[in-house]
């Protein structure tokens, strides 16, 4: 009996000692593991909030275009990567490149915009570089293919048409509350301005790619004021800019010259309105230049365009229907266009969309024609 008791006591003793030892060992291991994890967590947090942030965004589209009287063709639209570098909440660099392929298969690269933005206060940022023209709404905010509800730009809102595209200069931009949740946004800029392309004594077009040299020395300044009522998702904008611009001539040796600066003015108004999945867009823009007797192309001219677009997504389905009407009027009868367009979209996600559009194009001037087009596009914003 005595022996039995002693044996049991010893066995229990050994067992408890063993488990105490085991517990001690486990605790040590646990502590080491926790320390390791802590160190990892610190490392993990480090890259999440460094002072300099780097981010790559952008968009791309591919498609198919069939124009009356021409063979239908598969198309690569644009591949446009956007680079963001941000230092704390002080400075941001934004740059969008644009890679395209022309008819002959040659690739081209361009800089859509490239700016350094300095956040002066909660209400003002100073922007320097090449920026999308702040005149109106389509060119600066609605043209990326995953945002645009149609596969093409409205007539007059394409490259070097009635709506200015880009500018190189300085811009103040920001917004402030104006009662309740309503806000006013503003953009005020000064830049090199556009140049005019002349052919046979006439100005063929107003070029606004963002010129890296001011040929005539006369700057162009202005901007846009927007009023936004979030309660009804309505934004109204008015834009105006004025200054001097001139005709550029390239002679057969390739030497570039500019004639004397002439008056240049652009103005416009725009509207965006949204109720649930219904969206209404509208914009008017006019660019004009004065006469200049000594110029290679002396006459004054005016380029205007407007469009209205309605789209509706049949939620919860992913199908969307779009209607657009637009007019483009230039000093050259051959370039004028009236366009009605209808389209259906399939919205895979808010940044991935497939589009099928039909454009009814006509030239309102007697003796001129314009071709209708079918466009298919797949766009992805990343």
């Amino acid at each position, binding site marked *: 009996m005595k022996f039995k008791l002693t044996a049991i006591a010893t066995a229990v003793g050994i067992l408890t000692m063993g488990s105490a030892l085991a517990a001690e060992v486990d605790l040590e291991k646990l502590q080491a593991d926790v320390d390791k994890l802590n160190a990892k967590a610190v490392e993990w947090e480090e*890259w*999440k*909030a*460094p002072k300099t*942030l*780097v*981010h790559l*965004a952008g968009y791309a589209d591919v498609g198919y275009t069939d124009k009356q009287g021409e063979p239908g063709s598969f198309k690569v639209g644009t591949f446009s990567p956007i680079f*963001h570098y*941000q230092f704390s*909440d002080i400075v*941001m660099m*934004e740059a969008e490149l644009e890679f395209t392929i022309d008819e002959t298969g040659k690739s081209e690269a361009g800089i859509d915009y490239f700016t350094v*933005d300095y*956040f*002066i*206060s*909660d*209400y*003002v*940022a*100073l*922007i320097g570089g090449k920026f999308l023209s702040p005149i109106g709404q389509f060119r600066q*905010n*609605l043209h990326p293919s995953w*945002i645009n509800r149609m596969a093409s730009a409205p007539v007059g809102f394409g490259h070097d048409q009635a709506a200015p595209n880009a500018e190189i200069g300085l811009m*103040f*931009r*920001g*917004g*402030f*509350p104006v009662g309740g*949740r309503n*806000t*006013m*946004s*503003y*953009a*005020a800029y*000064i830049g090199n301005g556009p140049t005019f392309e002349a052919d046979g004594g006439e100005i063929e077009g107003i070029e606004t790619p963002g010129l890296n040299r001011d040929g*005539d*020395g*006369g*700057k162009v*300044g202005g901007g846009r004021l*927007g009023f*936004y009522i*979030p309660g009804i*998702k309505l934004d109204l904008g008015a834009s105006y800019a*004025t*200054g*001097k611009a001139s005709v550029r001539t390239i002679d057969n040796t390739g030497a570039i010259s500019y004639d004397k*600066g002439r008056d240049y003015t652009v103005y416009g108004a725009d509207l*965006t309105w*949204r109720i649930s999945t219904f969206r209404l867009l509208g914009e008017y823009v006019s660019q004009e230049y004065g006469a200049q007797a000594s110029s290679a192309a002396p006459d004054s001219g005016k380029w205007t365009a407007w469009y209205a677009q309605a789209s509706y997504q049949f939620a919860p389905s992913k199908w969307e229907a779009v209607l657009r009407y637009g007019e483009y009027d230039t000093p050259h009868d051959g370039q004028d266009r009236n366009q009605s367009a209808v389209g259906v979209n399939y*919205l895979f*996600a*808010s*940044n991935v969309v497939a589009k099928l559009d039909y454009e009814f194009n006509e030239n309102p001037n007697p003796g001129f024609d314009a071709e209708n087009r079918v466009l298919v596009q797949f766009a992805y*914003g990343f």
Partner: protein
Amino acid sequence: MNTQWLKISGSVLSALLITAGLLATGTGVAAEADSKKGDFTRGVQAWADNCTRCHDVRDPKELRDDQWITTVYHMRIRAGLTGQQTRDIITFMQGSN
């Protein structure tokens, strides 16, 4: 150099600079460090108000915390958001991804 543009753009620019200066000092006085911090609840409202204006709403889960900072600052410039709206929306995005 053309003196006419200098006159016009000079006055436009000085008006802008004065406005910018006034706005900048205004915020300096009004803003205390704490109230300037991003706020989740205000962020929900600012996000619902502003982020479907130009394009369909982007899912907060699309991006990481650090990517939302650069993205919302990018949108601040585009949309004319205030600095406070920007910080509030970032806080909301980072809390919802």
